[in-house]
């Protein structure tokens, strides 16, 4: 069982805290290709992504991470200044070792993600077939489950975990308690600002480890 991420979103929709599972398994595959390349790549945002032709552990949606060991910096540019697409298209560069993997979200992307959840939460209320519905409390996919608790003051706690993880409701309550204790009661913490408190981190870590191991707190 695992807790993948935790987000705390303030009343105004800003991300004020996030936790990522340490040593989350990174899926990376490196393979040496001959010319011509039998995988279709496309540019998506600032990444080079596999569009079609999945094989040998390289899957659709994986990003190109490095070419012959040279990492991609931003967009299609390699660290040594060459353009990844140009390198891949030129026959004389083959055989070519390409490394693919599932990209990890950067902090910036996480802030965007957290702000994306807010309108979804509100839309779920508006689209309810019944009167007096809350926003999204649980969201299920085949790879993870997201639990959300909104306090009466409008702060949202989001926990992203394994679909089978037990005791997440208790973790959410614990999270609220820790937030009240180590953020709000700290006179030097100002509301709506990112939470940077060692005690908060430590206690959260203890709670997460316990719930991952036993399924309750």
């Amino acid at each position, binding site marked *: 069982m695992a807790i993948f991420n935790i987000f705390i979103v303030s009343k105004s929709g800003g991300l004020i805290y996030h936790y990522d599972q340490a040593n989350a398994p990174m899926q990376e595959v490196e393979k040496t290709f001959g010319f*011509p*390349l*039998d995988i*279709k790549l*496309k540019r998506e945002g600032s990444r080079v992504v596999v*569009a*079609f*032709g*999945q*094989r040998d552990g390289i*899957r*659709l949606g994986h990003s190109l991470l490095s070419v012959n060991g040279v990492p991609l910096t931003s967009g299609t540019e390699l660290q040594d200044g060459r353009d990844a697409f140009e390198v891949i298209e030129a026959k004389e560069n083959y055989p070519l070792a390409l490394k693919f993997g599932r990209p990890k979200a950067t902090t910036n992307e996480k802030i965007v993600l957290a702000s994306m959840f807010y309108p979804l939460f509100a839309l779920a209320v508006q689209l309810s077939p019944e009167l007096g519905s809350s926003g999204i409390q649980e969201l299920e996919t085949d790879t993870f489950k997201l639990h959300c608790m909104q306090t009466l003051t409008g702060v949202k706690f989001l926990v992203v975990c394994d679909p089978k993880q037990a005791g997440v409701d208790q973790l959410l309550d614990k999270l609220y308690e820790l937030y009240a204790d180590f953020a709000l009661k700290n006179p030097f913490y100002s509301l709506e600002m990112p939470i940077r408190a060692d005690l908060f981190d430590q206690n959260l870590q203890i709670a997460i480890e316990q719930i991952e191991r036993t399924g309750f707190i």
Partner: protein
Amino acid sequence: MARLGGRGNLDPKKVSGELFSLTYGALVAQILKDYENVDDVNKQLEKMGYNIGIRMVEDFLCRTSSGKCHDFRDTADKIQLAFKLFLNLSPTVTSWSSTSDEFSLIFDTNPVAEFVELPDHCYNLRYANILAGAIRGALEMVHIEVACWFVQDTLKGDNVTELRIKFLRRIEDSVPPGDD
């Protein structure tokens, strides 16, 4: 195409293959009469196939509970399965291009041309073009754009009938329409 038992029933109620070939033959002959020009007939047959393909694919998907293809080799296997399911034919998949984006389906005979002899004036008629259209239509519905054409045809004296299929691109998910 042969009407097969619905409701997820994999045991097909088949219509006689002969009746099917005759019906299709009559259809092609009539279109040829109406259009006169062989190229136009090829186009019409392709278009009809396309219209069948975009519907038939749903039947295929719900009966086989297939997911999306992630690789063109997946796609080839599914097409092969579809021929088995709808026409009880087992074409061979061969002649892959080095980039794995093009392959051929080989049929021992022309699958819809049991009793056909092409008259001289329509040597360019692609008699079974409806199949090419059906494949293109079906794949378009699952977001794969392909080109599909006949390379060899037993009707024209070749040893086998060969249908070539080439991957062109992935079609992106459509974005919700804006207020306009």
